[in-house]
């Protein structure tokens, strides 16, 4: 159920290069929030479209989102201060299917794909699983949320340039740990997701991926955020699902890579 809530900003701070963690009072949205869902936030008067931002965590009626400044809209959002009010639609989309994760799921985030994995990993832990995280960043300045993940379970951090943690990609670390995994959940750039999906498939491990696409309404009416999917029952051809409503989380075997 989608709701429009006017949310008071509680805090907004830069936690990495161009990366902001915004906390807002969102009692209604917090009650609805499922791991892997997103909210759609109005970002200033001049920008017609809202900005879709994944939910990083919810706690006591407060919602935390982490976003990267990419254009005018997110720049505006980065300047919101305590007491400002945001127009937020949520909670949107289908998140991760938690009941399919088993005892030892691995959560993988790449860059700005890291934040939604936090709430997801927390939910898995609360369900009694022993979760593990693999987080990939471009470089040391982009590393975010490491401590929060470490509190939930074993966490591996890697950077593309080796300036922090393991030098290499999340897939390098995944290959070392994949045997013990009961499921994989991932969010990040498409090439990363594709590589993870290949490893999961080769090992026969279920894999859910959170996809991204340019979005309009955010609720499934305008049909712009198309994601190419395979036809059901192995038939030839493709169909378009929509990231905002059918996703953002898809089974990796559904996606046309």
């Amino acid at each position, binding site marked *: 159920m*989608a709701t429009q809530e006017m949310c008071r900003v509680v805090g907004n701070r830069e936690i990495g290069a161009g990366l902001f963690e915004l906390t807002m009072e969102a009692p209604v949205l917090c009650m609805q929030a499922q791991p892997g869902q997103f909210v759609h936030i109005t970002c200033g008067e001049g920008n017609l479209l809202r900005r879709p931002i994944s939910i990083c965590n919810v706690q006591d009626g407060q919602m935390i989102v982490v976003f990267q400044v990419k254009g005018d809209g997110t720049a505006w959002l980065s300047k919101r201060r305590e007491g400002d009010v945001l127009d937020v639609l949520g909670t949107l989309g289908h998140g991760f299917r938690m009941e399919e994760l088993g005892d030892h799921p691995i959560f993988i985030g790449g860059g700005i794909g890291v934040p939604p994995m936090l709430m997801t990993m927390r939910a898995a832990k609360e369900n009694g699983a022993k979760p593990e995280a693999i987080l990939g960043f471009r470089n040391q300045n982009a590393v975010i949320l490491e401590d929060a993940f470490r509190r939930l379970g074993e966490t591996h951090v890697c950077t593309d340039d080796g300036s922090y943690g393991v030098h290499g990609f999340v897939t390098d670390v995944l290959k070392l740990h994949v045997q013990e995994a009961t499921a994989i959940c991932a969010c990040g750039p498409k090439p990363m997701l594709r590589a993870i999906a290949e490893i999961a498939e080769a090992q026969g491990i279920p894999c859910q991926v959170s996809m991204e696409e340019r979005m309009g309404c955010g609720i499934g009416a305008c049909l712009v955020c*198309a994601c190419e999917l395979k036809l059901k029952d192995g038939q030839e051809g493709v169909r378009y699902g929509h990231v905002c409503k059918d996703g953002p989380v898809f089974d990796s075997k559904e996606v046309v890579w």
Partner: protein
Amino acid sequence: MDLRVNICGVELKNPITTASGTFGFGHEYGEFFDLSELGGVGVKGLTPTERLGNPAPRIAETPMGILNCVGLQNPGIDRFIEEQIPFLRQYDTKIIANVSGNTVEEYCGMIEKISDADVDLIEMNISCPNVKCGGMAFGTQPKMVEEVVSAAKKYAKKPLIVKLSPNVTDITEIARAAVASGADALSLINTLLGMRINVDTRRPILSNIMGGMSGPAVFPIAVRMVYQVRKAVDVPIIGMGGIRTGRDIAEMMLAGADAIAIGTAMFADPMAPVKALNELKEYMIQHGIEKVTDLTGAVEV
């Protein structure tokens, strides 16, 4: 206060409808407001069979506007009739079925089929800029408009609205051709053909290179075209293009619209139609207007 408007014998409880292609079949926005608040629902454009649409990216942004190249993704007319009409009929609102075809024959077949279904008005889309065949190609030349509208009209058992493209030199010429060929009403404007380029990658943002522009940025163009068409023909006009507020509705009606449609504004605020309706009522009280129909064409030039 009387908000009722009449489009070819079909009474809408208020002049507010939704623009085809922005509203799906009403399920999504129905979570935000009661669809019975609307005068009418313009549904996603239908084609004879299912259409997948274009690959992503299908949307680009521009100040106070968007460009889209969805490409008429829809489940096909049969599934609309079977699955969606029963859903929409739960609400006290009029159904405006929007249909497209690749050929004159396809338009005729669509209109014959939809005429026998439980819809109130038929909107014939001869102005979609995002499909290779048909669509806008039909709506930009008076001869083509005459051919497709006069053929389709023979199959229409419900009032036939023809949706016009703004991507023409003289919209009045197209409007006259449509009305002379049997259009019972006109709707305008469809989107304006536009393009955006990512200057970092030097590639177009939209998968289809070009796309249809909509949103508040196009509103003055829509007002101008409705004004011109109002003077050129004498059939009901549904005005659309960038409407957001109740005062925008008043402006569009003063220019000559009998009813209006809201589209892109809902992407910014899902409650836009309901808010606009309340603002329209406030405007009418403020100006002592008893009947909303008194606004139509009442611009003083």
